[in-house]
């Protein structure tokens, strides 16, 4: 059985310098500040005791006030999992650091989020629409999206 780490459990094992990046602890997830996201992700990946080498998926949710990004991580070695979340309040040009350099698997998923949710990922090698065509108005998964026709 994959052991799901609680937010507090993961936070306790984080490096001290990264403690400032924690924004909240949930029983099933760890909420981090978006500017610390990359550093914390890198730490989670490289720390031998945690070794989250496998990114299950990324998704984004539009809560109208803010966007929430959800990262599901798994360690194939230790068979435990962790959910980290981060938030982005800017609706006009939401920007989140990209984790492609850590996990290649994020490449297409970040493009998908950019396409459907309109969140820009800083440092992504090929940030452009994936499913919809160039010139499509709006981002469909946002709650305020209305179809032109």
């Amino acid at each position, binding site marked *: 059985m*994959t052991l799901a780490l609680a937010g507090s459990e993961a936070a306790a094992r984080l490096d001290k310098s990264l403690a400032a990046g924690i924004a909240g602890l949930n029983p099933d997830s760890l909420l981090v500040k978006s500017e610390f996201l990359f550093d914390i992700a890198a730490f989670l990946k490289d720390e031998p005791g945690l070794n989250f080498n496998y990114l299950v998926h990324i*998704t984004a*949710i539009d809560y109208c006030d803010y966007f929430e990004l959800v990262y599901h991580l798994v360690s*194939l070695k230790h068979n435990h999992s962790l959910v980290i979340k981060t938030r982005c309040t800017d609706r006009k040009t939401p920007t989140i650091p990209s984790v492609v350099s850590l996990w*290649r*698997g994020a490449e297409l*998923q970040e493009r998908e989020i950019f396409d459907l949710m309109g969140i820009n990922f800083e440092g992504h090698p090929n940030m452009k629409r994936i499913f*919809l065509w160039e010139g499509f108005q709006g981002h469909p998964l946002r709650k305020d999206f209305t179809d032109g026709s």
Partner: protein
Amino acid sequence: MALKTELFVINLGPLHPSTHGVFRMLATMDGEVIVELEPVFGYLHRGIEKLAENRTYKQNIPFTDRMDYIASMSNELSYVMAVEKLAGIQVPERAEYLRVIMAELQRIASHLIAVGSLANDLGAFQTPFLYMFRERERILDLFDMVCGQRLLYNYMRFGGVSHDIPDEFLPALKKLLKHFPGFIAEYDQLLADNEILLARTKGIGVLPKKLAISSSASGPVLRASGVKWDIRKADPYSVYDRFDFDIPTGSAGDCYDRYRVRIAEMYQSIRILNQAIEQLPSGNVLNKVPLRFRPPVGEAFAHIEAPKGELGFYIVSDGSEKPYRFHVRSSILINLTALRDMIIGWKLADAIVTFGSIDICLGEVDR
């Protein structure tokens, strides 16, 4: 004297005989060799995730069918598991077994198509493909018996399955299982003893272990690269922990290993099915769920080992009848992440084979 040659751009797809649907590969070629490749998605993007936000939970089951339409049962299973996790619904034991039976039958059916169409991509004039289809029809007959549909079943429900299996089902399934290993062995002999097939698949489209993990590959693609990771074992769901089966893995991560892993997985599925039939308890198959079903506020992620990889559903509920967010962890889209690395530097013909060996279904890639 060096000849001056020119690169040219060629569009493989979106309607190409071997893109398995509508997928485009924008290939820059130097003669026969592909030097740059850009996969283009979205030709089947129907906006399922958005549409699902405007339908009730139950209405979304048919949508999941239409994602990976080769393996509908697996999609349904993953979705109903996510919602059950969200709402804390219990599933009767008999229903769990039926779900496992359906999911494993679906895995065989899906692998049959994967292997058959790989042979088609290799240029075998449809013969292996049609043999596979003949066997798949037998499995479709069983599904037809259970739910009256051949392709998109709409069989699973929150709290069980829509109805019990008819009396003729088990004898028919047993008959199929008896005959099936022989068929796979014969088929495998036809293909794997063929020198041309070996030459065309061995060492082609290699996905190294490190890249496979880093690019979040899953399913047979990951296992062919030598990673022993199967959700059924690593994070057992339903009643998979009661069955005895192995996880076949490859070592080289090439097209041939992916083919081998799929063939071996079919044998394992047959093993699971045999055990499931033996253990199948009697009883109720559907727990009552209120008609106007409203799960509590929260979120849930459930994942299963679908035929093509790890398929997950991430559902966010705001307490209403409709999901607030309906996200699919598409196994195939993520498996395609490393496509470019696997193809660049190889010839056009290899690109087609590599692409075919990943086993994709555009319904789930684009959603």
